[in-house]
């Protein structure tokens, strides 16, 4: 219905993914405010790109793909900005700014702390494959990489997480 121009039908279409989409964005960004921005932008982009949606594909996976791309774009932008700031402040004495405080405050859940040991692609692969249960092919499609790359990063992510749980989260390791 949305594809035929009934914009009002968009809300019922996306409402079932309202919370999963935000949870995905939160696990990719580790920050509620940023997750909200990512999820909002993903929904707006999805709305604008509905004409290009391949109806043979899962709508949820398509939505997740848009959100993952948005989170990755933001991560890259933030990394560039951070590098520029660090270059500019190289001569200044180190001090914990409000950003650092916010990061510390945000990383409070076990899951987010575990995910912090992963690299960006490992994290995306793990979240999509193991937490959101996309299959390898869909994960590769969502992240715009090959199935081989997904398997390599997934293997590495599971290995790192197992070590992190065993060493730093005994309650998770023991299943408490």
């Amino acid at each position, binding site marked *: 219905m949305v594809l035929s121009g009934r914009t*009002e039908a*968009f809300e019922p279409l996306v409402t079932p993914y309202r919370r999963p989409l935000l*949870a995905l964005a939160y*696990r990719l960004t580790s920050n509620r405010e940023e997750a909200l921005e990512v999820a909002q932008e993903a929904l707006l982009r999805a709305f604008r790109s509905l004409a290009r949606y391949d109806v043979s594909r899962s709508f949820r996976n398509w939505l997740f793909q848009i959100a993952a791309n948005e989170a990755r774009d933001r991560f890259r932008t933030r990394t560039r900005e951070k590098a520029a700031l660090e270059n500019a402040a190289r001569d200044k004495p180190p001090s914990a700014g409000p950003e650092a405080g916010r990061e510390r405050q945000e990383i409070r859940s076990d899951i987010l702390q575990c995910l912090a040991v992963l690299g960006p692609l490992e994290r995306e692969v793990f979240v999509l*494959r193991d937490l959101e249960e996309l299959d390898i092919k869909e994960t590769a499609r969502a992240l715009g990489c090959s199935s081989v790359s997904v*398997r390599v990063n997934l*293997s590495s992510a599971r290995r790192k*997480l197992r070590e992190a*749980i065993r060493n730093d989260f005994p309650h*998770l390791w023991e299943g408490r």
Partner: protein
Amino acid sequence: MTCRKVKKLIPLCAGDDLRPRLMTEVRAHVDSCPACWKELEEYRQSMSRLKTAANAENVPDWSEGEWRALMAHAIGSGREVREGGMDRRPAFLAQPRWAAASVLGVFLGLAVLTMLFKDGNLGQRETSAAGEPSVVSLTLVSQETGLQVVWFLDKNFEWKGDKN
């Protein structure tokens, strides 16, 4: 398959993410190797516990206000795009060239009709002995240049000649 090779594949085996042929080989080895079996179980348990913890975790949700505002924004922007993109004028008026051509066509059509039905110009008939017209003449006059063309047609409306 050796333990060393299997250990590399165990993280993927734990989530059934190996290709079928490799999966069969790894399973065959694991079934006969207690050390690899133990490692595989550890991976499975760590994955399962992470997933359980993730499901139990209190992830943020939209406030109703945030969600309503977002939906209103999306639907509003969609309407703007739709209405902006949909030109309500007829297609032939959307482009200036077509509009000019249409106006010219209408003008010429009217001019021809005017000439056809104008008194005195709608054929001067020559009647045959039987009283039926044998030749029909049709005079076309250009209003712009004053040029006159007379067409002669027989009773079957076949063209017989013209005169400037």
